[in-house]
């Protein structure tokens, strides 16, 4: 079961930037690209746990602020020569409003 949770609006996030959503299982980074695509991934670089939400956003990727790994926002996979993957979270945009789907939380609540 997908549990869609409202997290705010598109304009809360700067273009080519990110904001965090706090959850009991750690932070989720929600990104907005230059052309208003929105992606959510765990705020945790597969390399050494760097906060990806703090990185520079370019295209549909983010560069981790700690050691410059480049992570695809679509797949959560490290790009280039690095190997690693971070969890991606489904996002839905309804007009201005943003929702993320949290499976684990829903089952815990039930």
């Amino acid at each position: 079961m997908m549990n869609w949770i409202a997290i705010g609006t598109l304009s809360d996030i700067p273009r080519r930037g990110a904001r965090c959503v706090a959850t009991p299982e750690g932070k989720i980074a929600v990104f907005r690209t230059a052309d208003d695509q929105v992606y959510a991934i765990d705020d945790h670089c597969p390399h050494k746990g760097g906060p990806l939400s703090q990185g520079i956003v370019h295209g549909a990727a983010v560069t981790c602020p700690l050691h410059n790994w480049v992570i695809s926002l679509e797949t959560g996979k490290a790009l280039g020569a690095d190997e690693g993957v971070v969890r991606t979270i489904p996002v839905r945009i309804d007009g201005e409003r943003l929702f993320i789907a949290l499976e684990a939380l829903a089952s815990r609540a039930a």
Partner: protein
Amino acid sequence: MTEKLVIIGNGMAPGRMLEHLLEKAPDRYQVTIFNAEPRVNYDRIMLSPVLSGEKDYEEIIIHGDGWYIKHGITLYKGHKIVAIDRQAKTVTSDHGVTEPYDKLVIATGSVPFIIPVPGHNLPGVLTYRDLDDVRAMMLAAQSRAKAVVIGGGLLGLEAAAGLNAQGMDVTVLHVMPTLMERQLDPAAGYLLQRAVEERGIKVITKANTQAITGNGKVEQVELADGTVIPATLVVMAVGIRPNAALAKEAGIAVNRGIVVDAGMRSNDPDIFALGECAEVNGMVYGLVAPLYEMARVAASQLAGDEAAAFVHSDTPTKLKVTGIELFSLGDFAEGEDRQEIVLRDAAAGVYKRLVLKDDRIIGTVLYGETADGAWFNDLKKKQTDISEMRDTLIFGQSYQGGAPLDPMAAVAALPDDAEICGCNGVCKGKITGAITAKGLTSLDDVRAHTKASASCGSCTGLVEKLMVLTIGDNYNPAAVQPMCGCTTLGHDEVRRLIKAKSLKTIPAVMQELEWKTSCGCAKCRPALNYYLVCDWPNDYADDYQSRFINERVHANIQKDGTYSVVPRMWGGVTSASELRAIADVVDKFEIPMVKVTGGQRIDMLGIRKEDLPAVWADLGQAGFVSGHAYAKGLRTVKTCVGSDWCRFGTQDSTGLGIRIEKFMWGSWTPAKVKMAVSGCPRNCAEATCKDVGVICVDSGYEIHFAGAAGLDIKGTEVLGLVRTEDEALEHIVALTQMYREQGRYLERIYKWAKRIGIPEIKRQIMDDGEKRKAYYERFVFSQKFAQVDPWSERVSGKDKHEFRPMASVGFAEAAE
């Protein structure tokens, strides 16, 4: 038996619906239309040409009075429907006419969005929606001089161009960084802004309108940053929203618009809605193509075809401003499973971008040359596999058919008199001739001998191809390391061209220098941001999202995602009250680690990002400002106690250190800059391994530079000896400015000096008084814009979104 069909609204959508209906079921309905506007159906898309004076109202009428008579349609002009009685199945107008219906079509369109700023209802504030608005604007244009258009979207720009054509002095205010950001990517937005500005229309982006003020009528517009723009006419064109109030009052389901199914039917089976007021599958529409599609569906349904259904399709956007060619279609977001093909022709002002997925076009942005828009739209619509023509796809339809063009063959096929370098007027024959006659083997040689590609550099690729064609393997490609994968240009070329071509924004650089990606990468964006801040201190507003995190939040990120904070201690001097304030902050925020740094500062480590503004607020109360320990800029000036205390001290080294630091803080540099001033040659401040150091001696001040004590260890070079403190400051500032203007991003002073040569730097700073003075003046000028304490800015609320999570979810459930 004829049924009664009543239509509320007489815009383009119901007009088109009637045309279809009269064709399919000419005798089925007796039609009555209520139009709030006192006129017939006209082409609203053509309002812009009416405003600019290119067309008259009569030319844009779709259905004249005769058409309604011929088809036996009753049209109530200037009648606004005020109530729908669904029980009795009647509608009533504001003039008291009540009309029964069997089927009702609501086509009330949309209403312009008005920003509720103070003064929005002053006389002189207009919207841009119908002919009345246009007439009011044309009237205003006759007598009044200055107009402000709020909104840099399609409508706003068309209004601005129209008013401009009517002879008004027009300023466009747009809240986003680039124009038409919904339809265009930043590169095309930049080109558009340039074209609009070339017509004499001023454009202010990131403009946040705060108030419209005036005595009884509009006199000026005030922005949040304090800018005041005089205006006698203000046009609000910030968007539209569906006009669904009437339907809502009648109890019909309304979300953003009137909710209809794919057959355009509302939740009342006898009531249809179409046009801008209708919401189908969660979408509302404003462009004409989908509205006409709705009209077709509604007409079929009314004619009894229950299978007719509305299907969403992307609609191209075009700007109707004469002389500006613009086309945008579909989805042009980036993604890993997508590829883009970008063509930039800086000289011709052309930008084309195709976004592909699985060898199919999914999005297109064309600027400057839109002839192939229809073809690309067709390929997209038909989902054509383009892999066969991929290499030449971007050049358009006329390049297709036959074998794909080999770019090398294309260059070889050029005649000898074909112009290669537009800037210097150099043709192919001259270049190949020089290569053969003079035995040239490198690009720089060709530039030196022919001037080809020596100005803007955009023909470099062509020149290189010519070299390969002429001398084959003997050609040595230039050994310039490109800035990053987004460009073939090196840092120096980019810096030179930023100045030479007066490029003042990141999209401008990317367009004019033909970047290969649409929005750069984490390597080039911070570099470009620095170059632009350095070269255009009073023009360029730094791009926040192109800063590295430390410079965005003014603290240093640590391995666990917490931050460290270093307040400025001028020259490394502190006091009891400062130390007390630091101690209080450490206690209050439970800061786990406090450490003295190598640059004579105090570092507080392990601060949570959310706490940063509060930490700064407390430190600010005690008089601290940011220590810029995170900056590519002046970090610290380390000092010894000098002649005030030390028995060996020759000059006031502490005082000079503080003076340098107070003079130079806040400036951005290619890489970090650390300085030191020692009061005697014993050098307790370790000035001889710094980026810039001063050793005080009896006869004055010995200035050192280009030291390193990090990845590399290197003693400083001596720049020279000066007599007074004032001279020392001037020389150090001039040296720093020279480095600021020439250094490559992330290149420390010692590496820059090695590249430029120590003698050349000495010559410019020590021997050439005029050059030195000029560097000094430029630094002083740029400091006017740079010396703003970022901590106090953040404490007062700037970028506060940066420090808070946007939401917290799931905690309540987890606690159960």
